[in-house]
């Protein structure tokens, strides 16, 4: 894995599977009486949030704390940042405080990239959502949820058909999901009115449809993206009603999905807009599960970036090869061979 997680494109298939497998193990921690691991004791994780996002911040905070890291929440509101301090000076401050990782949420696309590449900071940078660019940990938790529901919690998403619906143009979730899902072998279809698709989308590793009904019967998962009502003021669509009629997921459309298909939403939802309330609350909906999985996935990312003296290195073929294999097959890829003990 690279030292920073800025884009879903930073992850190879093996990296992504390593994160998902690790998250799968860490998910069990939540079921224990003591939900804390000592692994990141002495590490400092800064949540640097230039944009309000209580959900994402809490998720990262819970993840870091379950790994025993020291967590500093640095919200741009009410801090020196709102008084005009530059990103550079903020970064230098965090560096001086010894931040081992900076989880950054920023309204400007590319701000995490800038932070990581500038030399202002030595720690790892984790993108917690930048402008309309990317949100890679959201894509990871979505993939984790899909893998659990559609692929038995192991391996990749080869051949799974995933439909993403909504404001792709302004969605960092869509960008990260398209990249990660393609890396994991899924077949992605984007559905949106043409106004809400970026120029150049035809070069993305996915197909595009202006019609929601068409891909639904073959979709294993359908993910509804948040559509801001204000977009209609900029003529992206005529009215809320028309949007929801053409691109909203209601019970009629949900019935077109295969039996096993799931309905996802990264939140926060506009009930009645992109998703009908009874769809959001249906048993196919994984919306609450996605939130739970977010903590495990972010624990995995923080652990793999900060747990060692350098980020983990993924190995082909996945990691949890704990199940004894057939004679002669590859040995487990864990570091412990039969000869080893700690600090040997």
């Amino acid at each position: 894995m690279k030292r920073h997680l800025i884009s879903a494109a930073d992850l190879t298939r093996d990296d992504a599977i390593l994160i998902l497998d690790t998250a799968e193990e860490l998910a069990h921690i939540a079921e224990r009486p003591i939900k804390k691991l000592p692994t990141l004791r002495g590490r400092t994780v800064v949540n640097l949030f230039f944009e309000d996002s209580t959900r994402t911040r809490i998720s990262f905070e819970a993840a870091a704390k379950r790994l025993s890291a020291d967590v500093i929440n640095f919200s741009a509101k009410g801090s020196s940042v709102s008084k005009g301090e530059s990103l550079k000076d903020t970064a230098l401050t965090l560096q001086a405080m010894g931040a081992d990782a900076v989880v950054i949420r920023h309204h400007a696309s590319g701000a995490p990239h800038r932070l990581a590449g500038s030399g202002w900071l030595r720690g790892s940078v984790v993108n917690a959502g930048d402008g309309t660019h990317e949100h890679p940990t959201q894509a990871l938790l979505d993939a984790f949820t899909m893998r659990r529901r559609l692929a038995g919690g192991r391996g990749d998403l080869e051949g799974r058909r995933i439909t993403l619906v909504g404001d792709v143009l302004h969605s960092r979730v869509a960008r990260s999901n398209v990249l990660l899902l393609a890396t994991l072998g899924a077949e992605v279809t984007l559905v949106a009115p043409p106004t809400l698709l970026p120029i150049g989308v035809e070069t993305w590793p996915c197909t595009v449809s202006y019609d929601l009904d068409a891909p639904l019967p073959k979709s294993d998962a359908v993910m509804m993206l948040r559509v801001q009502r204000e977009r209609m003021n900029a003529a992206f669509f005529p009215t809320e009603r028309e949007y929801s009629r053409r691109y909203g997921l209601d019970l009629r459309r949900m019935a077109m999905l295969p039996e096993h298909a799931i309905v996802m939403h990264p939140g926060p939802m506009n009930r009645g807009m992109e998703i009908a309330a009874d769809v959001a609350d249906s048993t196919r909906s994984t919306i609450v599960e996605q939130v739970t999985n977010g903590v495990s996935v972010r624990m995995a990312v923080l652990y793999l970036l900060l747990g060692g003296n350098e980020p983990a290195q993924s190995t082909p073929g996945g990691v949890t090869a704990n199940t004894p294999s057939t004679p002669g097959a590859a040995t487990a890829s864990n570091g412990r061979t039969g000869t080893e003990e700690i600090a040997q």
Partner: protein
Amino acid sequence: MTAPRNTSGGTSAARPKDLDPATARAVLDPSDINRALTRIAHEIVERAKGADDVVLLGIPTRGVALARRLGERLASIEDGAKVPVGALDITMYRDDLRLGPARALERTEIPAEGIDGKLVVLVDDVLYSGRTIRAALDALNDIGRPRAVQLAVLVDRGHRELPIRADYVGKNLPTSQRETVKVHLAEYDGRDAVLLGTRAADPAAHTDAEK
């Protein structure tokens, strides 16, 4: 630079801490291993006065297979009694995590019965510095409160760095620190054997993790 973690091929180029094949010699053969496990199983039953509340937790990777084998033996000794067997990954509790790249996790599987009030027998292949067992005890502490914890190992090669000893030992094997012990198990390696030899030269010089 990870060296030992990239074990995709099993028999590919020499890795640090790998046995130099030229120096390897078998110190236990399959029947030795078989006898050792049977003996340990009997000792467990004897000391626990039965196997009623025994839970076997193997430490990945090879400790898990050894725990399964011990479980089968306990069951046969105790007339079909079902002995819970699980796996306890200690990666997140290691004290040397900072000495190398972050490590992939192995599966932890705690039997449904849990460990509260049970006699937990930790099972590992080789006992060396004792640090793995220290980490395992920490991990256990976060999972529950056993009645007692015991340790079973196939090989004790000495050189302890912590006040830890095994309750059940398949074979005490005096070694020098330059030597390395490799346990092969059929489940992973296609055959059973314990090999002793010197370490293969480490071109990547992963020395900070070496003792």
